[in-house]
């Protein structure tokens, strides 16, 4: 820090010349009143004038050595401090010989120290704010939930990345909009009223898009400033479409399961009661009724087994127990199981199996269930009189079990979802047929546990082909 200059030598000269000027002027006045000394009086006056001129000259030349007024100092300080320049020259205020200059200099120096400190503080604050803002933004941008901040007029002052993505509106556009511009049009009057009355509010909205209906859950909380005064709102928006879909699937599953449990139970109950009510039923009729009760009980038991498998699959605890399996026998059992269902719908069921089949190490029960599932679907979704073809192909160290039908087929949109748990087609023809939406998920899981896969190809109204492919030499992952 540079100190102020206090040029003592120049001040002493000025003082001496001033005294000399006064002395010469006084001498000239005294001589002027003494007769016959006018000549000396004039000379003294001329000398005083010369001294005055010299004093004036020195004053002009050394203007910076003049005594500045306090106001002047303050004005200079103000203009200095308001300067935007980063590299300001050191402040050079006074070259002052007065003893008071020391006081001024101290004040100025302190002011300058304070000024430098304040500038430093501002820079640190600025830096901290920048870092804080960018940190907060990074954190908010990493959220899956959309966060939008509005001021008291409802205009957006901040939106995170998820907010943009969920609403599919660019942030630059959002920041020029207000919340009313993006609120769904179907938000009820009650909700709007709650919003207007500044009540924390949560509501859901639906948006129809090309990819289907999107469900958003909105919530709004008041935002307060440091004095706890309302300052605007924080809006949260979450895409709950997947959740809604899962809920819908589960509801349908429960509905289906109820139906699947009630139907055989109703039959068992009705036939058993009929047998107990009427004692004059002939023997053949009685036998038929008992058989029906037994077959309905089997159907019920099978469904309960399926439910258990499903719950194991849901819990992720499904495992397989692989053994060397005679394929011929397994395939015969499968075809025997499905043949009556094929007959019931008058389907043309053709079986193409190579004469010699390799032995494979699989979980026979699981593979049987998976294939019965695929064949059962072919029966379910192929209208009466259609074709179902079951082909077994061995090639490239793989064995392929292919089920091809001439059924109602699967639309291109729905094809990627058929192996998802609880998925059921929106096709009315499928809705008319009972199904858990878990059969294909189960078969897919069985294939995966055998390190195999299921392929599907389908065309709407033409038919579908499902292929369960297993590696022949398999180190089985259990």
């Amino acid at each position, binding site marked *: 820090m540079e100190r102020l200059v206090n040029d003592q030598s120049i001040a002493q000269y000025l003082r001496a010349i001033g005294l000399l000027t006064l002395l010469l002027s006084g001498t000239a006045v005294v001589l002027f009143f003494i007769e016959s000394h006018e000549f000396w009086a004039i000379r003294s006056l001329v000398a005083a004038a010369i001294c005055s001129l010299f004093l004036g000259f020195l004053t002009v030349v050394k203007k910076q050595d003049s005594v500045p007024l306090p106001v002047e100092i303050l004005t200079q300080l103000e203009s200095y401090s308001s300067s935007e320049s980063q590299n300001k020259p050191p402040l050079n205020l006074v070259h002052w010989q007065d003893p008071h200059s020391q006081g001024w200099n101290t004040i100025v120096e302190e002011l300058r120290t304070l000024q430098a400190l304040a500038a430093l503080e501002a820079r640190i604050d600025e830096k901290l704010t920048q870092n804080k803002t960018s940190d907060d933004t990074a954190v908010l941008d990493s959220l899956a939930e959309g966060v939008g901040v509005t001021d008291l007029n409802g205009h957006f002052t901040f939106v995170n990345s998820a907010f943009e993505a969920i609403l599919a509106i660019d942030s630059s556009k959002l920041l020029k909009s207000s919340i009313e511009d993006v609120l769904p049009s179907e938000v009820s009057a009650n909700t709007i009223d709650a919003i207007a009355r500044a009540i924390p509010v949560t509501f859901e909205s639906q948006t129809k898009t090309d990819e289907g209906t999107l469900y958003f859950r909105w919530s709004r909380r008041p935002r307060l400033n440091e004095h706890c005064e309302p300052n605007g709102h924080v809006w949260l928006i979450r895409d709950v479409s997947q959740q809604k879909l899962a809920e819908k699937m589960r509801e349908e599953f429960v*509905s289906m399961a*109820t*139906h699947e449990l*009630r*139907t055989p*139970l*109703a*039959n*068992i*109950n*009705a*036939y058993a*009661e*009929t047998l107990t*009510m*009427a004692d004059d039923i002939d023997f053949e009729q009685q036998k038929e*009724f008992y058989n*029906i009760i037994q077959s*309905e009980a089997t159907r019920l038991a099978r469904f309960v087994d399926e439910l258990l498998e499903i719950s194991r699959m849901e819990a992720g605890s499904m495992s397989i127990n692989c053994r060397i399996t005679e394929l011929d026998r397994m395939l015969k059992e499968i075809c025997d199981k499905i043949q009556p269902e094929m007959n019931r719908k008058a389907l043309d069921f053709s079986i193409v199996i190579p004469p010699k089949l390799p032995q494979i190490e699989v979980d026979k029960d699981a593979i049987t269930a998976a294939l019965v599932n695929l064949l059962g679907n072919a029966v379910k979704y192929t209208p009466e009189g259609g074709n179902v073809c079951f082909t077994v192909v061995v090639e490239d160290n793989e064995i392929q079990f292919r089920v091809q039908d001439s059924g109602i087929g699967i639309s291109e949109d729905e094809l990627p979802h058929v192996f998802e748990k609880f998925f059921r087609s929106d096709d009315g023809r499928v809705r*008319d*047929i009972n199904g858990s939406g878990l059969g294909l998920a189960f078969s897919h899981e069985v294939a995966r546990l055998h390190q195999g896969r299921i392929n599907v190809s389908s065309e709407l109204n033409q038919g579908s082909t499902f292929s369960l492919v297993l590696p022949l030499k398999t180190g089985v992952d259990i």
Partner: protein
Amino acid sequence: MNSILIAEDNRVMADVVRFNLVRAGYEVVVADDGLAALEIANTRTFDLVITDSQMPRMKGEEFCAELRKLPSYQDVPLIMCSAKGFELSAERLKEQYGIERVLLKPFSPREVLAVVGERLNGTAVVNGL
């Protein structure tokens, strides 16, 4: 002899209901779904109709709605059977289609006979078969 039309896709269930109704002295015709039942109803008028709710091609509610459009079926008693109990509102079904009773599966054949007897003969009691 009173005649009854049954619309039920579950053949096993339809057979046992028919067996009991025939033994109780009714004439019974069974159709495999709502559409088949509607075709039959177009050809003749039955005294009472029993329908399942969940059927392919035409569901129970649609069948009842179509049936009520036929002049001869304005006052015919309708009974609905369903395995999806909680999803159906008996009040709504009565108001919309004049369905008099909703029987939830599993129901007892005695219950069916009682309801049918009450509607057709004015007697709610079934004393064995």
